């Protein structure tokens, strides 16, 4: 049984079509990258999977069960974790408390084991030394890591990463990629939207390209990046050539 299935999912905001009959299937253990130009509907796709945005038409199944109408919290508790492109830390809580909220609410684990899980999420994302720091005092890299830690603390089977490497330096991207590879190695299925294609290629084994709310390519990273459709979408093409070589 596929972990996640999107069947002919459509969504429009007024006149703007952000998803036009998108169908997608993920198996447990997959690591899939999503690329596409700005406004292609990538983040909206995540929001529809995680429940922040309701679909106009189509169906979404998680572990074989329809979740199309389920609330955000219910989807999180079912095993879908997500990060936001612009980090949304609980600014007045400490880094540890940020993770603990996710353990309590998402993973439904409390008490001693809950604390352990929250600490574990901080260790894995390299935030343990900042555990008592107010999240509002963190810089961008640490905010991105906190997004990851919090999503991880919900105990996800499917992790949706939205431009988690955006805005970071090359070295920071490498470090973060290591963390994500570690998460994948623990069996968490990953879907990753990223403009930093190089970061994606080191982690994913499947690439999906979205443009204008439609899925224009789906396959191995090399296939997708070399496909005519994707080259048309990315007029410049140079970035991709550089990444593949």
């Amino acid at each position, binding site marked *: 049984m596929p972990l996640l299935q999107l069947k002919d999912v459509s969504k429009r905001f007024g006149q703007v079509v952000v998803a036009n009959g998108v169908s997608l299937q993920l198996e447990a253990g997959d690591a899939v990258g999503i690329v596409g130009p700005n406004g292609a509907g990538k983040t909206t796709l995540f929001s529809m999977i*995680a*429940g*922040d945005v309701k679909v106009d038409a189509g169906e979404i199944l998680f572990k074989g069960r329809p979740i199309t109408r389920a*609330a*955000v*919290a219910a989807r*999180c*508790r079912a095993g879908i*974790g*997500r990060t*936001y492109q612009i980090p*949304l*830390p*609980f*600014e*007045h*809580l*400490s880094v*540890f*408390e*940020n993770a*603990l*909220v*996710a353990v*309590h*609410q*998402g*993973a*439904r684990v*409390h*008490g*001693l084991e809950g*604390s*352990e899980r929250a*600490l*574990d999420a901080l*260790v894995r994302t390299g935030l*343990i030394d900042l*555990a*008592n720091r107010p999240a509002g005092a963190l810089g961008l890299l640490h905010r991105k890591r906190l997004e990851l830690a*919090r*999503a991880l*603390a*919900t105990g996800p089977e499917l992790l949706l990463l939205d431009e988690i490497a955006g805005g970071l330096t090359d070295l920071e991207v490498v470090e973060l990629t290591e963390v994500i590879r570690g998460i994948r190695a623990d069996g968490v299925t990953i879907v990753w939207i990223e403009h930093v294609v190089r970061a994606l290629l080191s982690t994913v084994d499947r690439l999906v390209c979205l443009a204008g709310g439609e899925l224009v390519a789906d396959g191995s990273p090399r296939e997708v990046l070399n496909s005519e459709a994707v080259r048309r979408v990315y007029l410049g093409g140079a970035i991709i050539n550089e990444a593949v070589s």
Partner: protein
Amino acid sequence: MSATLVPDVGRTVVRANYHPAILIGGSVVVAALFTAAPWILPVAWVSVLNNFFLLLIMATMWNLLAGYAGMVSIGQQGFIGLGSYALLYLALKGMSPFAAIPLAALIAGAIAVPVTFVLFRLRGGYFSVATWVVADSAMLVILSIAYLGGGTGRPLPGLANLSPTAYNHDSYLATWLTALVVSVGTYLLLRSRLGLVLASMRDSETAARSSGAKVTSTRRWIFVIAATGCGAAGAVLAISQPFVQPGNAFNINWLAEMLFATIIGGIGTVEGPIIGTIVYFVLYQSLQGLGAWYLIIFGALAVAVALWQPGGVWGLVRDKTRFELLPVGYRVRDK
């Protein structure tokens, strides 16, 4: 309080930032002093303390509602009124008013449940105005019930067999014990998982939802708890009058006072309502000779605090000293 050991990362998670024995010991001493108050203090002081605890209950509830859950209700006087009238009804049916306090509070809380399904369709200012409408509607319904005394109200039965001294003592103790239960309960709630998720919702509702928090039902719980607390305040108010009348029970002044105390003390802090209630009574006692001027001074002070010191008195103390009298957070320490 309890330290949890996490061997694999070599860290410990602790709750209070100073020894819990001090917290518990201090609370026991304070509690014993207030319980003994009617025997050591003059009657007039006991009456002031009674009003103090009444306001403390209300401010604590409003702080929970507006400061923690972001629901700026301007209709809490509705639940105070409902608590008063629920107690009157139960007393008229033959229950001892003192024994009926918890039940009266629960009745106010139960009425809040269906109300949330209407109110929660509204946001921000619309929500606030609607809470006021609910309070006024509740009063209009009560006004129309002749059994409860209509517009003129009714004396609270069931207290005639008490001597004036016994009545004063018992009435004070009822208010004090209710304030104790409400304050300790609220503190424990804010230290619990519910308190943590409330704090997270205050910072980002979106992130709270996608971390698995059921935002709406959490809010509903808080609204109902705050209504129950205000109902309890209404119940002990009825006993301390002891006459239940719509103009007093549903008085919007209760709202003004709880708002003032919360804002002055520090909205969204555990200690705020306590500090604010103390400030309110100190100011009230020293300014009441000025007639209507005291209201103008109170209003100006509340505006000034909201503008220049939005964290209130406690916010200032906490920022300067990093001290927490009633800690709710978690600290990670090396083993």
